[in-house]
């Protein structure tokens, strides 16, 4: 009987079975950022413990970093305290830290893959729920809390239960203007935000096979929004080609050897999955959230659904969303006025995302009264985009071109919504207050759709803007 990728990776990293029935799982790569780690380092110190494998942890600063100027000391004193704390902790424990001066700083889930730190068959943990992003490479990667960060610092291990695997097959072909973001929003819309609890999502089928690594990261990133702690895509030739030549990846013959091992971690054809879900790509339109969780999503050409379309026990959340977002019966999502447009985040802050957005941005100017931000996911993404002149395209269209960080995805830096502003956002969460204002409203969509909304001043179907353009 065959095994899934999850089973292979799990078995290879299992230190032992604990009497609780959980696995003591070895974590190959531990990623650390400034918000969820200081308390863990304090716990370690309090317990009088040292790090077991400091060379297996890397750190960066992303959540609190300002995107207008990163000159020290940072303008916000609390942010400066956090940055100083992670610098100090990394120095003290001998952890490699990619700070603003390193040229490698960026969102932790952007820099790991781009440096080749994320590779197939690994176990990866980070005090951040979007660690699921790294599953795009066929890694078993998941978010943990601060007490568990302490456990990994101390022992490089976690006590954890093995999830069951749901295979999500998307067949057929995406139509033009339908991006990876639309595919993942559609999956969450179909299955719901709690369907993945206790499960790992394995994404399979022609639509994912055709995707670039950056698109695959967008999909795996949002596994957590569907309730799954982790999501992955089996490694294939696309994975191998992406990794070739990256900084932390071996070269020459060693690479060819590694590539064979990586490909062998893919799920076997006769593996047993917990269950399988089939989705046809033909049913996926450019998709936008209308509510207060990522499952409350619709196609751009649809009206806000009425409460009667939902299961009885979903209706309270639906009513809450109507009130918070300010919808009236029968409203359509297209034409909804926006105040802010945000392109960035670990979901959609990579080079290909910026290219798609720039393709739209160069066709016009940001509508009067709209504040439009482009925040590259990392310093490396920023450099690559600038080398192609994308920054100029954005600036000329009236977008602000910022420095790398999480920025308005969760607004722990000065980039925030105000009052009840409506934001077209390429990020991953539309929770109440997520973008920094307790009444702020978020519409999640693809970066191209955000750019289109910025030009229009309202939600618009990007396909109408791109009509007539070649592929």
């Amino acid at each position: 009987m065959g095994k899934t990728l999850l089973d292979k990776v799990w078995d290879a990293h299992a230190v032992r079975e604990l009497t609780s029935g959980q696995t003591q799982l070895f974590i190959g790569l531990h990623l650390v950022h400034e918000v969820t780690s200081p308390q863990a380092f304090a716990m370690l110190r309090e317990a009088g413990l040292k790090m077991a494998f400091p060379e297996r942890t890397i750190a960066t600063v992303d959540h609190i970093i300002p995107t207008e100027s990163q000159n020290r000391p940072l303008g916000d004193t609390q942010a400066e305290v956090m940055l100083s704390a992670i610098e100090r902790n990394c120095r003290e424990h001998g952890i490699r830290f990619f700070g603003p001066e390193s040229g490698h700083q960026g969102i932790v889930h952007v820099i790991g893959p781009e440096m080749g730190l994320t590779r197939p068959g690994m176990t990866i943990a980070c005090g951040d729920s979007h660690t699921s992003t790294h599953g795009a490479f066929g890694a078993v990667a998941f978010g943990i809390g601060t007490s568990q960060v302490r456990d990994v610092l101390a022992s490089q291990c976690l006590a954890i239960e093995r999830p069951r695997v749901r295979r999500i097959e998307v067949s057929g072909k995406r139509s033009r203007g339908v991006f990876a973001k639309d595919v993942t929003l559609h999956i969450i819309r179909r299955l719901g935000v709690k369907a993945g609890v206790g499960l790992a999502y394995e994404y399979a089928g022609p639509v994912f096979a055709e995707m670039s690594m950056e698109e695959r990261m967008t999909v795996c990133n949002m596994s957590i929004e569907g309730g799954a702690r982790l999501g992955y895509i089996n490694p294939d030739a696309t994975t191998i080609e992406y990794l070739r030549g990256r900084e932390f990846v071996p070269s020459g013959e060693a690479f060819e050897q590694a590539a064979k091992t990586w490909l062998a971690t893919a799920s076997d054809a006769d593996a047993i999955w917990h269950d399988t879900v089939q989705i046809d790509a033909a049913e996926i339109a450019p998709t936008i959230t209308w509510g207060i969780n990522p499952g409350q999503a619709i196609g751009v050409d649809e009206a806000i659904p009425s409460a009667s379309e939902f299961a009885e026990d979903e209706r309270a959340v639906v009513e809450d969303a109507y009130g918070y977002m300010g919808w009236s019966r029968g409203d359509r999502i297209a034409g909804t006025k926006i105040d802010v447009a945000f392109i960035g985040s670990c979901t959609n802050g990579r080079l290909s995302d910026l290219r798609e957005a720039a393709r739209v941005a160069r066709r016009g100017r940001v509508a009067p009264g709209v504040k439009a931000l482009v925040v590259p996911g990392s310093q490396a993404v920023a450099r690559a985009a600038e080398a192609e002149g994308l920054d100029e395209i954005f600036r000329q269209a009236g977008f602000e071109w910022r420095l790398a960080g999480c920025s308005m995805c969760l607004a722990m830096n000065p980039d925030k919504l105000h009052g009840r502003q409506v934001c077209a956002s390429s990020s991953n969460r539309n929770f109440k207050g997520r973008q920094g204002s307790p009444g702020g409203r978020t519409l999640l969509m693809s970066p191209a759709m955000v750019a289109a909304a910025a030009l229009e001043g309202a939600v618009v179907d990007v396909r109408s803007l791109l009509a007539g353009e070649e592929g």
Partner: protein
Amino acid sequence: MSTESLIRVERIVGRPIPLPGNDIDTDRIIPARFMTAITFDGLGELSFRDARFDAEGGELAHPMNDPRYRAKGRRVAIVNKNFGCGSSREHAPQALHRWGIHALIGESFADIFFGNCVAMGIPCVTATTADIARLMQLVEQDPAHDLTIDLLARTASYLDQTLPIALSDGAAHQLLTGTWDATRLLLEAMPKIREVAARVT
């Protein structure tokens, strides 16, 4: 750490507080703007900040503002489905714990939130939709009694009602044996850890 004795979590007794609603995310439990400190201190009063207070600091209707549920002391929260979804921030259970919550009973919990709670010695137990609805109603009518969560008997009891609760075997074992703070347990296997480390990238 070896000097520390194991703290077994077997039975939690506290006044109930219903926190109704499905899909309550950790951004709502503790908004990100309150996470710019390097300790968890002071988070308790910031629990559910934006659901409890308007922009001017005026109180909104929320169970945590309700005098019936506000009395100091240990509390057991009653919740619905997928509580604690979204961000992995341990700030969320830390805030609830500092507010006074020592156990949660609900229809279901998000994975990472659940794991964070276990690692803090806080049980998140589940019961059926009907039982949770009944419990919430009972508490609404008459809130001034203790709710008992018994992990050994796998029951929750309030007034004259006792209902069955569920908890995964792994979490139950960790709480009941006092190994919810897993660090020491994990470190016991260091020779084996080194073997695996030598083998995997």
